């Protein structure tokens, strides 16, 4: 074998960030922006962190939402409804 100075490779998995998981959903959250009071509880509780702060309110990124429905369940105003994906 050839002599080679190895600066030991701690091999690391390739970065696979922000993989879209919309295919996981059977239901999708639909936000009633009118009724939403901007308490931000959905943002705080969302396991995937896919609810984003925008200038005029909160927005759910459907690319990464897995459709768990925690936001809908926790919303104090029932301003999020889980609607069947077609």
């Amino acid at each position, binding site marked *: *074998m*050839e002599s*080679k*100075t*190895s600066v*030991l*490779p*701690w091999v*690391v*998995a390739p970065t696979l960030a922000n993989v879209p998981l919309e295919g996981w959903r059977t239901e999708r959250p639909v936000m009633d922006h009118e009724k939403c009071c901007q308490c931000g509880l959905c943002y705080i509780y969302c396991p995937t962190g896919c609810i984003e702060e925008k200038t005029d309110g909160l927005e759910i990124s459907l690319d990464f939402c897995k459709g768990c429905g925690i936001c809908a369940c926790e919303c104090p105003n029932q301003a999020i409804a889980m609607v069947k994906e077609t």
Partner: protein
Amino acid sequence: MGTEIEPKNERLACDGNIAVAYGVMLCRPDVMSFLPITPQHGMLTQLYQFHCSGLIDAEIVEAEGEQSAMSIVNAASACGSRTFISSSAAGLYFAWDAFKATYSLRLPVVMVNVSREECPPAIVVHSQQDIVGARDQGWIQIYPENCQDCLDMVLMAYRLAEDKEVLLPVIVCMDGFYLSHLTEVVDVPARAEVDRFLAPLQETERVKLTADPVSICGAGFVDQDLAQVRYEYCEAMERAKGKFAEIDGEFAKTFGRNCGGLVQEYRTDDAEVVLVTLGTVTGTARVAVDRKRAEGLKVGLVRVTMLRPLPRERLREALQGKKAVGVIDRNICFGCNCGGLFMDVKSVLYDLDDRPRAVNFIDGIGGLDISVDHLEKAIDIAYRASLDRSVPEVTWLALER
């Protein structure tokens, strides 16, 4: 009994545990962790005394289990610390899960294993079962013969482990009780000499765990990369052989003595029968060889100093042209009905065009002494074996089977 002499050139009468402690102290470790276990505990006491007197400046952690101790030194080594750990048999086995991580992460940890028989049954005596049994677990293994070797090989272990061409963990495989509990004369080198001997290690750069920049240790990778990692490990192991021989030469220049490299030959030039040994039995074997030589037999001795990586080339060189090779094993290779060193040596002999007859002598199991008489008998059997194929391959010397 510990002493508090200054680390300058000094001659001591001490046991192997103390000798190791001096060696470790001289190498300036950063983080050490261990638990006491018979027959190693004297080493720990001495290390702590060095810490109290200021001769050692390190983080020392007496962990609550050898698994933890091994993990502590692994993690500290991963960050770049020079580390030390010592254990024996049951402690080594308890550390297994973390012990298996060290070679894989290429951590240059130095361990001294003070070998001891396996429990159950609860038996507190020497054999090489624990450490020869561990030879395929990825660590470099070197075997001291006497207490001086114990100190010297610690120095060589760091020099080898942290070498930029190697970066592999090293175990100094010390025979428990024979080296840990018997007193011999040991020359302790001066600190400045050791610093000089280890100075080339400053060139080594290795991947370390840091908070900033971001680094990831031990966490997942794509399957095909593992083959590449293992291949590079194998390359490093191969380089370690030549490197050890080089280091042995440097040691001689710096300290005026050395251990003879990967394999040490004694009266082998014209020998027809050669005994192959590992560790302290070598001293007894030399006496047996001399006695048999006095009777007119052409017999010699090969001491295997480095067991892993297996020094195939040197062993072939030393054993070719011999009529018989008698391998002494203080352990058994489970399921192979012979000893571990024998398995290794026999595989090396296969490459020779003119193969000597290879026979195995199992002795020293359960801490029994391997006497000169036993080894003389072994030489006789090896002679007969070279002429008579029906002489069994394996003889249990103590059982006369």
